């Protein structure tokens, strides 16, 4: 499995990437929507994990841009807010799941596997 992590909090994405690596999941990480969109279009990721609040082009705009060009891309949105506004917007724009920060890495992996198993069956 290959994952792209997009979050403006560099320490968060780099640590999450290290944790995924320890579980045998290959991941790249970037800290803004522009780089996220570029990498998403240049590579074939199984999953993109995207923060909703970022400077520049935000998570929702990035999600919409990726979905416009690669509708089959699977995306999980992360949000730091308990408000339902961001997660509903993310799901409406085509995200498969949302996670509230702080995220549980096992929960993240479980959700990825859950969707992939559904697709296989």
């Amino acid at each position, binding site marked *: 499995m290959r994952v792209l992590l997009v979050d403006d909090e560099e*320490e*968060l994405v780099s640590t999450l990437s290290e*944790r995924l690596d320890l*579980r045998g999941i290959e991941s790249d990480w970037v800290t803004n929507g522009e780089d996220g969109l570029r990498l998403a279009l240049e590579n074939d990721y199984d999953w993109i994990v995207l923060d909703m609040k970022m400077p520049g082009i935000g998570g929702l705009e990035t999600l919409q841009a990726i979905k416009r060009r690669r509708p089959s891309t699977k995306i999980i949105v992360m949000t730091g807010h308990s408000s339902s506004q961001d997660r509903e917007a993310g799901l409406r724009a085509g995200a498969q799941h949302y996670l509230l920060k702080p995220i549980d890495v096992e929960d993240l992996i479980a959700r990825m596997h859950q969707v992939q198993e559904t697709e296989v069956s």
Partner: protein
Amino acid sequence: MAKAADSSPVAQGLRFFGQATAGVTHEIKNCLALINEFNGLIGDLIQAHEKGHPLNLERIKSLVGDIKRQVASGGEITANLNRFAHSADEEWDQVELGAHLRLFAALAQRSLHRRGASLEVTAGDAPRGVRTRPMLLLLAWQQALEATLGGQQGGGVVRVRLREEPGWAWADFSLEGASGGRLPGPGVEPGLRQALGAREEPAPGGLSLGLPSGQDQ
């Protein structure tokens, strides 16, 4: 028909209170998310070691340091939130403008970061104390900041410099390193200026907000 928002200084102050609190709690949550990841990675490394992988002690030491740093950062953020909450204790109070502006800068940090901008306060040598309405003054800083940024989203640094004139303490807001900027029209709403007894003047790249000093209110 939608009801127009209450534009009284008190209602604006409450809205600002809500927005600033939301921003600060987001920052606290961010600290917790980072501590969660660092702690999780320490657990992962220990678990890997238990399965026979060599223990990367230097990485664990570095993560312990990262956690300590985030705890300190969270403590600073909550201290600012506490100072902010207490700014509503007294309608009028003696305020040291440099400290008040630095508190405002800390509260505005998250929303400015999302816009690629930042705020720097130059308080000068001597503290400038004025008797004012602390909560409304935070709202005035917010409006002065927004007017200086001029609605642009392209970053830049807003510098605030404090200076003194007989009977007045001035805060000069100016935008550097960005195109666009200051929009025509008043920066701080007239009703809010009146409530603070403040004056506003245009300044290069921004505006100046003057507060009465050295007098009993």
